[in-house]
């Protein structure tokens, strides 16, 4: 069987390029230029899928993106895509398509028994049938429904293809390249405006590709060809094919997706599958055309019943004849056009049923393919007509979706029997059929006018040129919303299996508002969003509730116009590229040493440095802490935020930002600083060094770096613009290492240039200085300690970061230096009771954290006043404590809650929670920090640490949060 229904000549397919493809495993041939639907039609296939609810056989209804029925799974493996409309899938060699929603096969689907259950599957059946008992919903009903209903299935693995995101800017965006769009693009482009013209199809021309019309006494396609060449040669015009503008957003922003490689088997090298755009357009012209309406009659979903416009597309554009003996049903003069196209290409016209003469189609017969129809003439006479194709034309619905995306509703235009755009979004004009101007001449005129206007509005002078002239034509139409005398199921929404009786039922049960009816019946809620269904649904609701269509009104359209794959929205932001990864200056060196890394925010930081293969984190941490506390360790602390502040008011500014006073800090000294939010809670902490009279270097927590920067900008620009201070983030400009341990000074002495004195007297605890190392490399030295040891932080310009860590390891070798990672860093800070992420959780105050001494009582600062709220002073507030398990080898868990012995776990009895835990090599015990109610007065108490998630319930003893060297003798050594 090879393309039995392919016409021997005509069409826009390339017969010299045959393509092979499979549908449900069966091999077929087609041609370059085909869609999957046209190729299957050429091969005599009429059954494409099964319907959503009743599993009825379905064929192709349309030839475009509005298709409700012919949904297939495309490709295979991880490239599989469900719910692809066969009508828009361009054929390529080796294409694999599979029908959906049927089991075990398309021809024999056991779920079609649902048709017999139709009485209970009516509108609202989800609500009615499965209301009780509630526990049945998750376990019984939902899985059963999901198996039976639903559309295609997504692939299981990761999509191997790439997607991109891009911006595009233009003066005039023209959406749709039919006669109106081309005409508009020509006008605006000739005037000199920067134009983007896009169309969802691979070919420009819109309906002109399907209807053999004439422009300027030439075949219309000649005009399209000429216009395309002209537009392509205009440097200010860019044409995007295969691009759908799916959404209109505020301020002239349009969402679009370009299917770069969907028409190919796999994307070419370095090409994405799709690219999503934000187009920023000063003006836009919507020339999206219109979608033909089907007709609501008995069993109107039988394969072989198609829109007249689609039949003309298949015959004229694709040279595929969808049937041999056709009945043409129409309520407009479109019927004749279809009949002519069929007749000219060898099909027999069994009858033309024009409802304007009083004849109507009542019912279709046939299972997997229409075999006959029943007609009732104006005198009530019934007759049967045998056929294998039924063409229906019932007027057009303007594709005005984008005009609604900002909330405007379409208005019913009685003279056109259609909804036309209501109040238009700023910057948008509508031309041609999308405005309800359905004839070719109107489209050409509208487009030209809109193009000229748009060009003028953005500052260009339109060029006068002759309006292309089309053949005389008139749109005559009297819609038939449903044939009430029909027997059988009369589908309104094909994709969601909604019938006219469902709408009646909804109305009868009180769902008279269009929004209620939509949700009760699910009309228009499928992937096609009811493009072919909605208006008939509204008309029927109007009829049964004795209202006009304009009284019924319409639901609104929201983006996207057609489904957009999530990959296009994600672009490259997937997997490791989901967000940026920041590497520390010592990353490469640490990697060479076999460090184990962990994510902290965007940073990859060394968690620990295994000394031998298989050394686990705990063993490594214990070793790293011990060596650091006994000899010396080095740690990359470049991730801490660093902000350089300068200006004569820098000190004043810091006094207002920090709870402490920095104006009294001498040059060459460092001070710990605490920042509050204006509501009185602790915001961030860190040290700030005074490098000069008007020059400070602030550090922030790793996590808080960007928040603090934004906060400083706010304080300066919004609160105190009069202060003369400037600041910038230098986090990435400086590589910084902490060198900690009794031998730290010895190590540094080997590196600093000879004239630099770093003895305890010359460079005491909390000193800072600009120095040089390694023979003239500028560096900054700070004598600060997070670990509690004699410690320094040394900063060098980032480009020396790698060299410095290698140098430190080299000169430190004789002093027993080791690198330590985050685990050791964290353990040492817990041993010292320093607060960090767990304690700085946005719910703690300086008083809670035992840092009230850091709050100067002599001045105001951000958050000061609110930190004095009475509630913050209540003795029952949880405050920072340390604790140890009674059995010191018992592992403690962060997040556990404190309970008194014998108390029941309840909110009322909750005493607080554990914020940080670690195994302390210095104490040979697990230790922890926590926030405990009235904690100050509970030193020595024994309470429980209870963790329901990890099922632990341990006795712990409350102690001071500083476990080691409470007087700080080591760090001053």
């Amino acid at each position, binding site marked *: 069987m090879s393309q039995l229904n392919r016409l021997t000549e005509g069409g826009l397919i390339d017969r010299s390029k045959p393509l092979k493809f499979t549908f449900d495993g069966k091999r077929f041939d087609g041609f370059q230029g085909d869609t999957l639907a046209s190729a299957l039609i050429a091969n005599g296939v009429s059954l494409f899928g099964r319907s959503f609810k009743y599993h009825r056989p379905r064929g192709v209804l349309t030839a475009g993106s509005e298709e409700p029925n012919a949904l297939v799974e495309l490709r295979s493996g991880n490239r599989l895509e469900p719910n692809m409309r066969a009508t828009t899938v361009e054929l390529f060699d080796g294409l694999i398509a599979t029908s959906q929603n049927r089991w075990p096969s398309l021809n024999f689907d056991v779920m079609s028994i649902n048709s017999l259950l139709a009485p209970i599957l009516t509108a609202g059946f989800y609500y009615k049938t499965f209301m009780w008992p509630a526990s049945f919903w998750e376990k019984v009903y939902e899985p059963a429904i999901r198996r039976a209903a639903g559309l295609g299935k997504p692939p299981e693995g990761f999509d191997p293809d790439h997607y991109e995101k891009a*911006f595009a800017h233009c003066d005039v965006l023209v959406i749709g390249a039919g006669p109106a769009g081309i005409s508009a693009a020509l006008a605006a482009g000739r005037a000199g405006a920067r134009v983007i013209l896009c169309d969802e199809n691979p070919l420009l021309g819109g309906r002109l590709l399907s209807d053999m019309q004439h422009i300027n006494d030439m075949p219309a396609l000649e005009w399209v060809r000429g216009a395309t060449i002209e537009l392509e040669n205009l440097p200010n015009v860019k044409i995007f094919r295969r691009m759908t503008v799916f959404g209109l957003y505020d301020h002239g922003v349009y969402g679009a997706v370009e299917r770069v490689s969907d028409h190919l088997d796999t994307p070419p090298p370095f090409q994405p599958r799709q690219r999503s755009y934000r187009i*920023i357009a000063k003006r836009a012209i919507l020339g999206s055309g219109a979608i033909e309406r089907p007709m609501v009659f008995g069993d109107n979903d039988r394969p072989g019943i198609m829109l007249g416009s689609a039949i003309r597309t298949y015959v004229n554009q694709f040279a595929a004849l969808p049937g041999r003996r056709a009945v043409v049903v129409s309520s407009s003069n479109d019927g004749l056009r279809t009949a002519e196209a069929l007749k000219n290409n060898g099909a027999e016209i069994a009858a033309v049923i024009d409802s304007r003469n009083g004849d109507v189609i009542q019912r279709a017969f046939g299972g997997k393919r229409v075999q006959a129809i029943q007609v009732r003439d104006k005198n009530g006479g019934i007759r049967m007509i045998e056929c294998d194709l039924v063409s229906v034309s019932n007027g057009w619905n303007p594709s005005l979706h984008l005009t609604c995306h900002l909330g405007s509703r379409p208005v019913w235009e009685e003279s056109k029997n259609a909804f036309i755009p209501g109040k238009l979004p700023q910057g948008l004009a509508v031309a041609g059929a999308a405005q309800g101007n359905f004839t070719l001449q109107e489209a050409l005129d509208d487009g030209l006018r809109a193009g000229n206007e748009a060009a003028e509005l953005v500052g260009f002078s339109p060029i006068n040129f002759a309006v292309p002239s089309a053949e005389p034509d008139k749109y005559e139409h009297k819609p038939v919303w449903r044939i009430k005398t029909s027997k059988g199921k009369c589908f309104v929404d094909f994709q969601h299996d909604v019938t006219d009786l469902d709408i009646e039922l909804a109305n009868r049960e009180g769902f008279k508002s269009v929004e209620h009816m939509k949700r009760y019946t699910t009309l228009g809620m499928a992937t096609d969003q009811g493009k072919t269904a909605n208006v008939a649904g509204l008309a029927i609701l109007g009829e049964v509730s004795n209202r006009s269509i304009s009284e019924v009104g319409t639901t609104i359209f929201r983006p996207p116009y057609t489904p957009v794959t999530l990959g296009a929205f994600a672009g490259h932001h997937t997997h490791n590229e989901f967000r940026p990864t920041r590497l520390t200056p010592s990353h490469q060196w640490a990697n060479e040493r076999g460090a184990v890394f962990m994510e902290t925010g965007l940073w990859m930081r060394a968690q620990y440095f295994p000394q031998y293969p298989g050394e686990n984190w705990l063993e490594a941490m214990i070793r790293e802490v011990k060596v650091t506390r006994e000899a010396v360790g080095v740690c990359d602390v470049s991730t801490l935020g660093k902000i350089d502040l300068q200006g004569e008011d820098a000190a004043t500014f810091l006094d207002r930002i920090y709870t402490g006073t920095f104006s009294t800090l001498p040059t060459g000294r460092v001070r710990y600083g605490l920042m509050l939010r204006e509501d009185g809670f602790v915001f961030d902490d860190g040290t700030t060094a005074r490098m000069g009279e008007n020059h400070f270097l602030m550090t922030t927590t790793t996590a808080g770096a960007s928040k603090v920067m934004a906060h400083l*900008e706010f304080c300066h*620009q919004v609160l105190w613009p009069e202060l003369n201070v400037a600041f910038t983030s230098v986090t990435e400009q400086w590589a910084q290492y902490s060198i900690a341990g009794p031998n730290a000074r010895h190590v540094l002495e080997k590196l600093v240039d000879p004239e630099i004195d770093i003895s305890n007297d010359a460079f005491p605890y909390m000193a800072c200085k600009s120095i040089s190392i390694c023979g003239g490399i500028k560096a900054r030295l700070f004598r600060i300690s997070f670990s509690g040891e004699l410690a320094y932080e040394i900063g060098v310009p980032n480009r020396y970061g790698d060299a410095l860590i290698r140098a430190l390891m080299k000169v430190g070798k004789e002093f027993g230096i080791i690198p330590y990672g985050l685990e050791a860093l964290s353990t040492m800070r817990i041993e010292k009771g320093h607060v960090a992420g767990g304690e700085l959780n946005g719910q703690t105050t300086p008083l809670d954290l035992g840092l009230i001494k850091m709050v100067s009582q002599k001045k105001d600062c951000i958050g000061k*006043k*609110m930190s004095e*709220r009475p509630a913050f002073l209540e003795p029952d507030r949880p405050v920072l404590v340390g604790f140890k398990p009674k059995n010191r080898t018992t592992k403690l868990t962060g997040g556990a809650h404190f309970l008194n012995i014998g108390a029941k776990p309840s909110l009322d009895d909750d005493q607080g929670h554990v914020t940080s835990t670690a195994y302390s090599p210095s104490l040979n015990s697990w230790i922890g920090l926590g926030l405990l109610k009235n904690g100050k007065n509970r030193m020595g108490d024994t309470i429980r640490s209870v963790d329901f998630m990890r099922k632990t319930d341990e006795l712990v003893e409350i102690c001071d949060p500083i476990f080691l060297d409470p007087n700080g003798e080591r760090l001053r050594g």
Partner: protein
Amino acid sequence: MRIPCPFCGERDSQEYAFLGEAGLIRPDPTADDAQKQFHDYVHIRKNTAGITKELWHHVHGCGSWIVVERNTLTHELFTSEYVSERLRELSK
């Protein structure tokens, strides 16, 4: 949404961070009812449905804090200016 920045020109809204109502004056901490005033300053907002003045931070741009006048019902945008007079003078 497109938001004009007085320094950078019109930019996509994703370059900005939103803070909230503009024009709040940080109270005098020495006032008798400073506690009450700070409470209102931190917590009480008009939450206008309609034309508002809002603070936006051009955080992925020049770092300017700007006041944007905009209609929250229609998203219509009217004006955008530096939050501080001082900066406006500097830009001249």
